[in-house]
């Protein structure tokens, strides 16, 4: 999912230059790194501080579980896992300088074999070009911005080629891209009887890109877009802006850390009958627990994650295993993506039969009909997954509650 830029950076130019090495903090190794011979290192780079902390932890735990189940070994080589932090404390979200540093760290380690991340699309736009020069396989558990992989409507000119200076691909993702999410959101709004929709976006790679995709999908589906405006994430409120909006349905295309809750509050107050929609960028605890109770029944969010019950048998087994290992009743939606990101990377190493970085990248792009915890999918030439199903969640009692799934026709 998401992209972003560090908003409130203000006090942070400093932390951006500082707080650096501590970021590589929570490094943990699951396989035993004792034995002789070469060992491989898989890095992950995720925002471990700020509003996305919960999701990042779920990804890290999912990845650890996958490695643990593989016995910490692949092709007889030890595999260690190092988790890096791409956020700074004061920004409360990812920071470009920090992302660059993480990517450099992974790139300069002669044992590194793959890089899981970033969590945010805007951050991946910074790290992909760095890792592309190595080249090192990069798999994102959550990026949805279309331009990272494909030159389709919604991408900005020059995307995605500009992220790959060597002109060869090294990046893939296991969540459907925004064209799919946009189509799912539009389908959801249509099925709820929306005649027109107003979109506010947080003007970041993710928010603005998704908003563009929604506008495109809405056009094809015959849903009118009354407006698509940017917000200032540092503003104290959006009342004057909201008072201009008179649409039956409203979508905030952005992330929680960009003042997401206040946007919904002010929109809901300006028009008490508007139906509220949101993307995976706000589908997190920091949003659901802070949204006023009065709004919760009215808000519907889409996430690429489905109800545990809707998953294939392998997926259901994963949720069971994850809950038991980490002692959480209902795993964060992103846990399964962390698990699958690590699994598909290990699978690529295994199939490549070597520890050469290029051959692992090649093996990843040859992933075909992989039966995984997410269901059976392939990776296409752009590095995109062929999965197209989105889950619709309602916010009830401060929690995300699964309501239905929407399957989007590929190519929508």
């Amino acid at each position: 999912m998401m992209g972003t830029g560090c908003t409130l950076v203000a006090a942070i130019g400093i932390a951006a230059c500082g707080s650096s090495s501590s970021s590589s903090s929570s490094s943990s190794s699951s396989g035993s790194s004792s034995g002789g011979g070469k060992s491989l290192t898989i890095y992950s780079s995720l925002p471990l501080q700020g509003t996305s902390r919960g999701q990042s932890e779920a990804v890290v735990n999912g990845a650890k579980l996958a490695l643990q189940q593989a016995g910490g070994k692949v092709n007889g080589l030890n595999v260690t896992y190092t988790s890096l932090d791409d956020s700074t404390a004061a920004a409360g979200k990812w920071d470009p300088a920090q992302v660059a540093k993480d990517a450099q760290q992974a790139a300069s380690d002669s044992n590194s074999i793959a890089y899981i991340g970033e969590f945010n699309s805007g951050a991946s736009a910074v790290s992909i070009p760095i890792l592309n020069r190595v080249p090192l396989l990069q798999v994102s558990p959550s990026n949805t911005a279309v331009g990272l992989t494909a030159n389709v409507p919604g991408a900005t000119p020059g995307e995605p080629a500009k992220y790959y200076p060597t002109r060869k691909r090294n990046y893939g993702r296991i969540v459907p891209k925004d064209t799919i999410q946009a189509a799912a959101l539009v389908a959801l709004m249509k099925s709820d009887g929306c005649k027109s929709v107003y979109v506010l976006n947080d003007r970041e790679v993710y928010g603005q890109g998704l908003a563009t995709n929604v506008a495109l999908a809405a056009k094809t589906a015959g849903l009118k877009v009354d407006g698509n405006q940017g917000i200032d994430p540092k503003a104290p409120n959006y009342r004057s802006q909201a008072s201009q909006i008179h649409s039956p349905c409203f979508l905030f295309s952005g992330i929680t850390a960009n003042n997401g809750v206040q946007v919904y509050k002010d929109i809901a107050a300006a028009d008490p009958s508007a139906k509220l929609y949101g993307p995976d960028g706000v589908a997190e605890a920091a949003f659901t627990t802070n949204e006023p109770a009065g709004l919760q029944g009215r808000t519907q969010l889409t996430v690429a994650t489905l109800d545990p019950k809707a998953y294939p048998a392998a997926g259901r087994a994963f949720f069971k295993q994850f809950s038991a290992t980490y002692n959480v009743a209902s795993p964060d939606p992103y846990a399964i993506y962390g698990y699958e990101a690590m699994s598909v990377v290990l699978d690529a190493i295994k199939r490549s039969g070597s520890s050469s970085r290029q051959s692992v990248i090649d093996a990843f792009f040859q992933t075909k009909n992989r039966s995984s915890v997410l269901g059976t999918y392939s990776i296409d030439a752009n590095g995109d997954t062929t999965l197209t199903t989105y889950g619709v969640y309602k916010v009830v009692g401060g929690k995300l509650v699964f309501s239905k799934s929407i399957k989007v026709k590929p190519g929508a």
Partner: protein
Amino acid sequence: MEAASFAAGRVRRASALAWVRGLLSSYGLYVALLALPLVYGINDLQHAHNLTRLGQNLVNGLSNGAIWALVALGYTLVYGIIELINFAHGDVFMIGSFASFAFWTTLGLTVATSVLGLVGGLLVTLVVSMIACGALNVMIERVAYRPLRNAPKLAPLITAVGFSFILQNVGELWLGPAQHNVSDLIHAQQKVFSISGVVVNRSDLLALAVTAPLVILLTTFIARSRLGKAMRATAQDPEAARLMGINVDTTISAAFALGGMMAGAGGLIYALYQTNIWFFQGFRAGLFAFTAAVMGGIGNLRGAVAGGLIIGCVQQISDNRFGSQWTEAIVFGYLILVMVFKPQGLFGEQTREAG
């Protein structure tokens, strides 16, 4: 520096230029200030045939501006006396919001509390927040500014920024890096009444109802009380004031205390009004409020209030017409216009006299 030319044409052109410049410097700012409401007023009349939208902008602007006005008072008091831009002031205001939120949570105020309990509880919170921020401001003055009374002017400015960072860090540790949503105790966005389509919400009434008496109290205090007189004397000439037996240090502390108290009150209103608080809110509040203080003529209390209300209106019109993303640039654009045309401010003439 250059030999002046006495050619007649030159003189005439120079005088015409001077006339234009004079005109610009006396009225340019007023034209710039009135441009936004005038343009949009005409625009509204043409398209909607009424002024509801502009009226709504102005109502929101006045209530938002009331908060900036309270913060601006602190800037103007301090700058008027020791000519220091107290960069930490916006963050004292932020601490005011945080302290208010913490205190009312301790009191157990919720959306369900009865009206009487709410009014009483919030009044106590107001007093607590004012005292806390006043004390904090005095403490900052003692630690960071007083030791630097005789240092180069840049030194206290840097300590002010240093304290601003420290307070922001405190706020961030306190409630996290993202905007923290607080319970909407007063149902901020509930309509109270409306005049020809212009809605007045509870939040608007609250902001004005708290600000007005505080401003009146403060101006009366500065104008009438002994300490107020001492402040005005110190502002005019610290050395002379000292020679006349005024304790300059005490007077400066008093200015910081009063400024902090206003910021504390502003902090509570902000929390109730916006229903979200943020460790970084003080940065923008501080800059907007300083703009307001400069606009009103630094050192001039009434000017600061007027400046705050003007900034509030500019901000709301910009939010409404251009989208909130451009607001910052527009408000700071106004600041530069003020500095270019009238560095002494709209009501600058009476700077020293008004305290």
